[in-house]
């Protein structure tokens, strides 16, 4: 049976339609949930898409993390349900405390929009379970506030616990700590990624690599029960 995938729409989200299409392309039963709704309608997976929620006012994600839907997202995550935050979604998850660290202005200040190469560092998440460790993917980035930072202790924990999920290869586009492009929480069900897998999920869009993330999500072996039991 298809995974039920809730794509949350905040005021200022702009990757919601691409994300919905990428989930539907792998067979998921994907649908939108408006940020003022609190009912995720029996979602198996929740995706917080990219964009500029609330205009990035104050800090990227700082206001969206208090949207009513986030209470449902937090409950879903605490129950072991899979959550993926893409770009602005990653920023929101960090602001909400569902992921450690934070995302700051790119080291070279410019908004960077281009494909980058990332390496899959762990397959032990709902969004990389069909990948092979060491796989390299070409996926686009499009962010001004993409520099992942964490204090030395948190960064060491992420490394020691295998919670760096994707890492930039060759060139780090934003100056992030340890070249980090994506991480997961301790329970491994909540994942954040700065690049946009939904923007490069088909040869027509320049390459198929991003589809891996959605195929993993849809694959049967990635069900919530597993992540719940592994906590």
């Amino acid at each position, binding site marked *: 049976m298809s995974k039920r995938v809730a794509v949350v729409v905040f005021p200022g989200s702009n990757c919601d339609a691409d994300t919905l299409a990428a989930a539907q392309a792998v067979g998921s039963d994907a649908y939108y949930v408006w940020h003022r709704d609190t009912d995720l309608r029996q979602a198996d997976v929740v995706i917080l898409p990219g964009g500029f929620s609330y205009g990035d006012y104050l800090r990227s994600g*700082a206001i969206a993390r208090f949207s009513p839907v986030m209470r449902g997202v937090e409950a879903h995550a605490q129950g072991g349900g899979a959550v993926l935050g893409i770009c602005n979604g990653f920023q929101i998850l960090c602001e909400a405390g569902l992921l450690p660290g934070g995302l*700051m202005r790119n080291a070279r*200040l410019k908004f960077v929009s281009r494909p980058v190469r990332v390496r899959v560092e762990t397959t032990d998440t709902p969004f990389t379970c069909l990948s092979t460790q060491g796989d390299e993917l070409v996926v686009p980035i499009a962010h001004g506030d993409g520099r992942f*930072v*964490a*204090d030395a202790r948190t960064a060491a924990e992420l490394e020691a616990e295998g919670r760096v999920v994707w890492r930039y290869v060759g060139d780090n586009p934003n100056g992030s700590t340890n070249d980090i492009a994506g991480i997961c929480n301790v329970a491994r069900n909540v994942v954040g990624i700065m690049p946009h897998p939904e923007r490069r999920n088909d040869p027509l869009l320049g390459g198929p690599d991003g589809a891996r993330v959605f195929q993993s999500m849809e694959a049967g072996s990635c069900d919530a029960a597993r992540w719940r039991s592994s906590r």
Partner: protein
Amino acid sequence: MAPYRVEVRVMPRAALLDPQGQAVEHALHALGFAEVKQARVGKHLVLEVEAATRADATARARAMCDRLLANPVTEDYHLAVDGGEAA
């Protein structure tokens, strides 16, 4: 209840790279202000709040900073209430 003016200064944490501050520093050097040893860029918020006492206003403002106005992972903040130093 009385009106208080709360000013909040939010700065990137000292240990973290502040690329905006660096850009400003370089620009000042380019203009001949060689005496600038470091520049950092933060933000300044001004709140008008109603509170019974200055201590109450300060406590509420601190709660606002902890919940929303500053991110403790990346930023430090400093409060001034009614022009007086509260932090």
